[in-house]
């Protein structure tokens, strides 16, 4: 498979000025000598992205992933090295970039489309598709400054996907709009994939990469850490994230080192057959614990964070079920969750053991192990909530109101709810 994008020893240096002098006077005062520190946003990045591939670029904020995308898009010029691109390319770095607030949606479609490389004739031909996709038929001649942020973003996406480039660069813009629109965007990305177009997705969200990409590059401080199949790359990314991001001295030394938590592992209902678990399956967290002395008044704590660091769950500190007694020696602490009601995402598990008699924490392992939930259904959101939908005919009305049976639910002013299918 020929490479659609060849990134060849690409480096990009930024200058971090100690103070930004943007007027002649200031430059003159400092004698033209500006003190700056060279900052390498990208260092010798080399990669081949094959044609028809969906390629992820994963990295934390400031890892250089957006700089890389901008270099590929031709917005920034590399300091050294080059990028060779075969075919037409469109970059979606920001939806609705270049929209003119004062102009109508119609004018902005032409402006934005032209910026992305469409000719006037092509835009005219696709105009109706774009408007329909954005669901803005009745507002298209209004100024975009009156649009809601959702309408704005929908219009931006509608133009971008209708450019139909050979190569599409996407920078974390997939997570826009309401669920229905997200679905539509995802369908469009899937269609692009089926049509053999090359897609490069930049994100710090592992689930976006896992769901969409075949291969993935992991960047850290401008260096390529790994280029691998998506699952493995995410593992490397998380290892790097936790290795670097762990604050020093997190977890108290208060209880001395009487109790030390060793490795923390997760196991789930589907372990052995697949790396991820499905919503509703069981999860077991185990932690190796070494105890130098017998401890009778300890309590175990378990907490789960999502990949953006938000706390999803933490056990109740007053729950007697978490109170444990540890004999001297080693053992394994088990946390059994019979059912995990979470939807898609990568979650980190923290385990701690604290003293019941005072506030001392014997040991705390922060976000030590991960587990991944992959939702096979089309439910979206954060948690799995089983829902039954029924329609009840009004029984009292004998005249006038004819019971509506068999009519499409959606036209009744109610959203047809999606019920969560049992896995």
């Amino acid at each position, binding site marked *: 498979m020929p490479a659609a994008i060849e990134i060849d020893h690409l480096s990009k240096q930024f200058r971090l000025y100690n103070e930004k002098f943007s007027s002649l006077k200031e430059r003159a005062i400092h004698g033209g000598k500006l003190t700056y520190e060279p900052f390498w946003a990208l260092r010798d990045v080399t990669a081949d992205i094959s044609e028809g591939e969906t390629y992820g670029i994963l990295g934390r904020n400031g890892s250089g992933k957006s700089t890389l995308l901008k270099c590929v898009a031709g917005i920034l*010029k590399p300091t050294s090295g080059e990028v060779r691109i075969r075919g037409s390319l469109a970059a979606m770095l920001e939806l609705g*970039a270049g929209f003119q607030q004062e102009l109508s949606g119609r004018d902005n479609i032409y402006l934005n489309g032209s910026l992305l490389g469409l000719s006037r004739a092509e835009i005219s031909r696709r105009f109706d598709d774009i408007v329909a996709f954005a669901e803005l038929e009745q507002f298209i001649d209004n100024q975009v400054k009156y649009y809601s942020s959702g309408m704005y973003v929908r219009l931006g996406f509608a133009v971008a996907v209708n450019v139909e480039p050979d190569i599409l660069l996407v920078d974390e813009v997939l997570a826009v709009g309401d669920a229905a629109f997200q679905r539509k965007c995802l369908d469009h990305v*899937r269609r692009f994939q089926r049509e053999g177009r090359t897609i490069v997705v930049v994100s710090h969200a592992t689930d976006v990469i896992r769901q969409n990409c075949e291969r993935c590059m992991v960047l850290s401080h401008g260096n390529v850490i790994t280029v691998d199949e998506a699952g493995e790359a995410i593992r490397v990314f998380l290892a790097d994230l936790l290795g670097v991001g762990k604050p020093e001295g997190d977890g108290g030394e208060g209880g001395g080192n009487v109790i030390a938590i060793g490795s923390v592992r997760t196991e789930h209902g589907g372990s052995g057959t697949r790396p991820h678990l499905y919503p509703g399956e069981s999860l077991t967290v185990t932690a190796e614990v070494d105890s130098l002395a017998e401890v009778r008044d300890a309590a175990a704590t378990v907490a789960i964070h999502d990949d953006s660091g938000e706390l999803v769950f933490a056990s109740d500190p007053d729950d007697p079920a978490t109170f444990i007694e540890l004999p001297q020696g080693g053992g394994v602490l088990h946390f059994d969750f019979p059912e995990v009601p979470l939807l898609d995402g990568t979650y980190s598990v923290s385990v701690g053991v604290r003293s019941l008699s005072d506030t001392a924490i014997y040991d705390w392992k922060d976000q030590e192990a991960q587990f991944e939930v992959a939702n096979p259904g*089309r439910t979206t959101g954060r948690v799995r909530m089983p829902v039954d939908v029924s329609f009840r005919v009004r029984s009292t009305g004998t005249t006038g109101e004819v019971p509506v049976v068999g009519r499409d639910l959606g036209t009744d002013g109610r959203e047809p709810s999606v019920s969560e299918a049992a896995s």
Partner: protein
Amino acid sequence: MSIGAVGPAATEPDLPAAVDDSPLPARVTRATERTMTVVNGELRLGPRLRALWDNRELLLLFIRTELKLKYKDSILGFLWSMLNPAMVLGIYWAAFSVINRGGGIPQFAIWLFAGLLAWNLFNNAAMTSTTVVVGKAGIVKKVAFPRELLALSTVGVAAFLFVIQVGVLVIVMAALGMTPALGYLADMPLAILDLIVFTSAVAVFLSAVNVYYRDTQHLTEVALMAWFWGTPIVYAYGSIASLVARHPSVLFLKYLYVCNPMTPIVMTFQRAIYGKASYVSPAAGNTAHVATTLLPNLGVGGYALGLVVVLVASVALFLGALVVFGRLEGNFAEEL
């Protein structure tokens, strides 16, 4: 009545959301057949010029957008671009023909307007170009396109206003019964070409420099003011020439005027539109008729020669401006 699951059976681990099953379009070409784009730190003038040409539709769109925004929400809209120069012409007529008498130049408003026509195009574009890249930071930071187009769009907008002003001038001249010097009108296309190329060079240069040195815009304002009075627009070149003839010590003035690319352009406008290179003051009292020279007494070819020199210089300046722009453009996205 239970509806049950709307989503697909939840056993498929990967999501092959086959909602849109449109057939593959034939336009997805194989990579080997496609044109290759190379992004690197090098700067090549040829591809840059070609990119400008390839994106001419975008340039027109930028110009249209700018014009639309300019008169948006105003009741008279585009009529303003007509009313404005008409009013300016009226004010000049009132100020100079009635009150001051314009140093004696007959039909002074027309004389002035002829020179201003060229100057306004240059001045408008130069002034707006300084802030155009900074003002469009949103696009510049997020979309890849030849950014010179932004600078050129300011020239386009100025050129549009120029055309309107020409329309006003034609109407007023017809009303006054004045005729231009028909022979010299042949030099006008060349003069306008000079004006566009030279203005583009300045606009491209200023738009890039102002990203790095934001005081360019203020400096430009002052410089344009000085430049305006250094160009024979309000007064006639003839008065400078006769000054130099009387006092050879100020010969440098003549060179200064010759080096100003706007001088030949403005003088061609004046020669063609105003129609006369000199005028004769009527005898008053005991003085005889006095002939005053306004413009060099050259033929159509003489004016054309000056314009050709300016054209060569302007093209060179334009290419130079593209090089400067190209060097500075690489870091626009981080500077803005």
